[in-house]
């Protein structure tokens, strides 16, 4: 038996497999999550996490959910100004005519669940206050500034990514 040749070829095979895995992982690693942080909150209350999802790859990537033991329910939400079309359905709302304000002062901010947030190829998408956020409903413990917790992000096209969120007052 040619032991050295066998070992050498085994090593080469392992290296090749490792390299291939590395290359595949590399295309997945082209999605990075940066500048992530979470808001403080009390047990039972709601909170949110923010981040930048950067996609240096060649294909769009969609964030479709997140999980953590920090909250009973976790969804992807968007805060947005309700559009005039939406507002027409609120006939029971307060009469706005009294002070003669225009729509700039009266926009109703609503939070709604979104199915996905897409980071386009070669681009990045921002989850920031007043816009997209990962929404935690029913915190399982207090979140004080400086606390950390794990958050696993689920993407449609690539593997999960788990990040460590630090709670901050921003």
């Amino acid at each position, binding site marked *: 038996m*040619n032991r050295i040749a066998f070992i050498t*070829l085994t*090593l080469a095979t392992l290296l090749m497999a490792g390299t291939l895995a590395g*290359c595949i992982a590399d295309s997945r690693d082209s999605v990075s999550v940066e500048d992530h942080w979470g808001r403080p909150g009390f047990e039972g209350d709601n909170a949110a996490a923010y981040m930048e999802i950067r996609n240096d790859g060649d294909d769009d990537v969609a964030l479709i959910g997140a999980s953590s033991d920090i909250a009973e329910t976790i969804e992807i939400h968007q805060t947005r100004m309700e559009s005039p079309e939406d507002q027409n359905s609120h006939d029971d709302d307060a009469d706005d005519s009294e002070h003669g304000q225009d729509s700039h*002062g009266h926009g109703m901010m609503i939070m709604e669940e979104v199915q996905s947030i897409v980071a386009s190829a070669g681009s990045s998408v921002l989850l920031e206050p007043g816009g997209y956020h990962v929404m935690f409903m029913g915190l399982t413990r207090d979140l004080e500034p400086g606390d950390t917790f794990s958050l696993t992000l689920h993407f449609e096209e690539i593997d999960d990514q788990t990040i460590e969120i630090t709670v901050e007052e921003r």
Partner: protein
Amino acid sequence: MNLTTQNARGFPALIVIIALGLLVTACSSSDEIEPEPTPVATAEKGDGPRGMVLGDSAQAPDFELIDDEGNPFRLSDHHGRVIAMFFGYTFCPDICPLTLMHMSHAKEVLGDQADDALFLFVTVDPERDTPEQLHRYMARADHNAIGLTGDPDTLAQVWEDYSIAVDVEPRDDGSYLIGHSAQVWLIDPDGHLAMILPPSADGDDLANDVRWLINGSSS
């Protein structure tokens, strides 16, 4: 046993290993792409008002609610200062803390002049926002507005008086979120409805407009 054969087979394998090593290097180099820093807007804005100035000098509708320490709070008792008033709820994790941060920032920017201003957070969620809940929410380092709550009927009248739309959105799990108007009202020291800041206004905008009113702009 046969060294010649071993060497003959080992040599090409080594070349493969070296080649693969180069490949690994080539692959991993794409990790080094650094994101470009997001440019920060530094444009200077003027000193004039940034929110919407209301010209009709209507008196701010008065109300009596309960503050986050459980004490009665009558709005008209606090005229003489500029009042900045926002409507939200403590289970709102996004726009409400953001606006409270803006209020805290405005207080910092105002410095000593902050004593001439009062920052109020009126709940749109009387069911969950008890004085105790509001108090612990406001007790956070950067939430230093006065939280106000009350019975639902009294609050509904306040919302109507200040054109605050409140839309309870029930969820399947039995909880609810609340859509609500997110403008900040500014009341001048004489108790007039002076300005409205849109939700897009930041802490600097708020500080600017509060200071503008403190300095007697509306005279």
